[in-house]
């Protein structure tokens, strides 16, 4: 899987332009960033969000008429997996104070805070505890920790500018204000941040940051954070975890409160009822819906289940029209297609180069701008590098980092990627990587207030399932921050909520019944079910053989 000879020839052009580029970088000469107007222009022309084809207005629910990608519309315009008229809610399989749906970063942070406040917690998760996009976040976590050169104002401005000035200001303020607390919390829990000898935290740039405030743990920041908070959760007596048990419906009481959920045991195929005083939704993102057919960096379970559940129960969504394509997904070799090549490479100074070995965009532009620039390079300008399977990419010049920082730098700072490419006989300290934008993040999601409450009493939401904090475009390092900031708040708010005298009422599935009627009226075919739970990658060849044509006709 080493680079074929044709690509090796093209790498020579990268090597040829490298000495001059390194010289310029050392003199702090950066590739000219685009003006705000230029940025907006390139996004409108080349970013997939702005292509009307492939979108449609949602036919039902609280945001009826809102135009989103077809793949989102498909999971929202869909029936429940259960029949609300026949399902027995009287049988209770589990009960607890707080049910947390989703066992990634947000859910686990919420569980820790809720447990500390005295609540009994169940985390219901689709796969294993910690199987989430959190574990895959590589680059880092933003937060102001160096007040001699940085401030909450600067962080706020970066976040809202990156989000096209559309973000919910209250959520942004909460995000940046809580960030230092989160970093400190992680440090005290025993997270191995990359530090100088005296304990000073290493910080790097991310796309769209005005200051170096990206804290990292090598190139496996999310993995390290998830390992630590999961370990902590496993130490706590009052946190119980139900793995391989995704929620497929929320329970809403006759008094309008969220009071539990129906889970589906993926292995035994049983439906289970969990009763709770409060529910935290932390189900993560949508990459495995393959919006617009893009490859994705996301976890196997990222199918936007929480958005479907909450929407059906009447929670509005926002910013769902904005999907983030990470500028640098691996596109060669094919086995690692879609895999995230962290922005930390560019934060550390690696250049993006076209087929001629020339820079074409300021590497630390916001993600949507950089993605649009890469797409332009590979389409309109015809300066992309062709791969053996007919796709195009651009170079990410990792070897220049090795030259600037000394031998062994890449292996030390990017151990994950170093070993990954080594398996395919590519040494990223010597040869550049081929990259192309890859579906990365669900900017939008369910509507929350800054205390993570939704419009349904007893239902809280945190992390990628929510929308508003990042506006139309999230900056690097703000997703790990988001899940921990709002996960922690959700845990605390939910724990506080249940201490009040509550008249929760009796659980019903009335919302499902109502939603089904709306779907029928809109003519949505009954075979369409959601949540999707898992993507289906079984080969077409096998599927063809599975069912006899006569059965297919009946479906």
């Amino acid at each position: 899987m080493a680079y074929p000879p044709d690509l090796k020839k093209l790498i020579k052009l990268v090597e040829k332009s490298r000495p001059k580029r390194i010289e310029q970088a050392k003199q702090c000469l950066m590739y000219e960033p685009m003006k705000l107007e230029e940025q907006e222009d390139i996004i409108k022309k080349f970013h997939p969000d702005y292509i009307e084809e492939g979108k449609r207005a949602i036919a039902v629910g609280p945001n009826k008429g809102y135009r989103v990608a077809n793949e989102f519309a498909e999971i929202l315009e869909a029936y429940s997996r259960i029949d609300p008229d026949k399902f027995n809610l009287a049988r209770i399989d589990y009960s607890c104070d707080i049910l947390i749906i989703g066992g990634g970063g947000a859910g686990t942070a919420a569980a820790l805070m809720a447990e500390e406040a005295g609540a009994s917690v169940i985390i219901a998760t689709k796969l294993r505890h910690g199987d989430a996009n959190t574990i895959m976040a590589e680059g880092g976590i933003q937060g102001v920790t160096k007040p001699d050169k940085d401030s909450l104002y600067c962080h706020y401005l970066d976040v809202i500018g990156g989000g096209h000035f559309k973000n919910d200001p209250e959520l942004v303020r909460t995000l940046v204000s809580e960030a230092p607390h989160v970093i400190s919390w992680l440090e005290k829990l025993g997270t191995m941040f990359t530090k100088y000898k005296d304990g000073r935290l290493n910080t790097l740039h991310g796309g769209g940051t005005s200051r170096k405030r990206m804290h990292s743990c090598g190139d496996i920041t999310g993995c390290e954070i998830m390992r630590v908070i999961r370990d902590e959760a496993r130490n706590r007596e009052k946190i119980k975890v139900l793995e391989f048990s995704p929620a497929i419906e929320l329970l809403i009481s006759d008094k309008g409160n969220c009071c539990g959920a129906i889970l589906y045991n993926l292995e035994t195929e049983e439906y289970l009822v969990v009763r709770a005083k409060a529910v935290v939704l932390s189900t993560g993102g949508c990459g495995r819906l393959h919006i617009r057919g893009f490859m994705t960096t996301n976890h196997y379970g990222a199918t936007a289940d929480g958005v479907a559940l909450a929407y059906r129960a009447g929670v509005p969504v926002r910013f769902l029209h904005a999907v983030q394509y990470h500028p640098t997904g691996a596109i060669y070799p094919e086995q690692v297609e879609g895999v995230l090549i962290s922005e930390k490479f560019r934060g550390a100074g690696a250049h993006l180069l076209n087929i001629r070995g020339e820079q074409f965009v300021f590497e630390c532009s916001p993600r949507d701008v950089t993605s649009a620039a890469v797409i332009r390079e590979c389409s309109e300008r015809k300066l992309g590098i062709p791969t053996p399977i007919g796709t195009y990419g651009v170079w990410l010049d990792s070897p220049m980092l090795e030259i600037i920082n000394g031998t062994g730098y890449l292996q030390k700072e990017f151990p994950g990627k170093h070993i990954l490419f080594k398996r395919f006989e590519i040494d990223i300290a010597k040869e550049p990587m081929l990259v192309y934008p890859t579906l990365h993040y669900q900017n939008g999601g369910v509507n929350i207030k800054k205390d993570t409450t939704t419009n349904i009493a007893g239902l809280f939401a945190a992390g990628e399932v929510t929308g508003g904090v990042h506006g139309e475009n999230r900056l690097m390092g703000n997703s790990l921050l988001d899940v921990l900031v709002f996960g922690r708040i959700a845990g605390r708010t939910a724990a506080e909520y249940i201490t009040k005298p509550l008249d929760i009422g009796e659980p019903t599935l009335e919302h499902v019944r109502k939603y089904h009627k709306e779907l029928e009226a809109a003519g949505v075919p009954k075979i369409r079910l959601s949540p999707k739970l898992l993507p289906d990658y079984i080969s077409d060849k096998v599927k063809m053989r599975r069912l006899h044509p006569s059965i297919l006709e009946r479906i």
Partner: protein
Amino acid sequence: MANAKSQAELQKGLTSDDVKVTEELIPIFIMGKRYDVPKSLTIQKALEYAGYFLIRGCGCRAGICGACATVYRLPNNYKVEIGIACQTLVVPNMYIAQIPFFPAIKAKYNVEELKVGTYTLGEVYPELYKCMGCNTCTRSCPMDIQVMEYVAAAIRGDIKKCAELSFSCIMCGLCAARCPAEIVQYNAAMLSRRLAAKYLTPPAKHLEKTLELLQKKVFEKDLDEIQKLDEKELRKAYSEREIEPIETEEFWKPKDRKHLVPIEVVED
């Protein structure tokens, strides 16, 4: 591997264009049963190609979550090979089985209360001392971690070394599955990392300072101000931001201190 078509769609419009045989197929044996799969696939994609719908044994699909630990043997070779399914290419005639779960001991502890010393790890995980130095763990690690070395460090009480050596661990469990001494290496390593970060690495003083400043609410006025800006004003402020250069030393000083805490307050 974008959205797979539904079965109904497939059946309806099927033409020979839909069937592309462009790649050489090789035989592999999934739990002893033969399937022919394209030779460029990873084990994970080969399982799906063969018709397996994965529930366990599949996670991030990017080599970082440890869900897809796999063991296999090659023909005419006594060796047990290991790999993570999403990162390992298929080889002709390989015999595969996944180990999506292996029972393990995870001690419960409170890191706030643990006293760090030579015997800390051994007290929490006494089975560490059963290590007989066979090195099977290291040979079973898909991340090329020197597992036996970090176990040795743990036994010696060198918590920091154990933490550093085990840093890339994805907790796939292959080491524990194959250990004749029945040690759960990765859980001991997990504890070592938390202890090393918490007790054996100096805390970040500038972070403590930031928390102090937060408590004094020194940032609030600027935040009130920026929250009041309309989009036009925000755009102006955003365009005029001073950007810290990428290649610069740690103690870079911005020229514009308008929205920073006065330096004398920071250094106070």
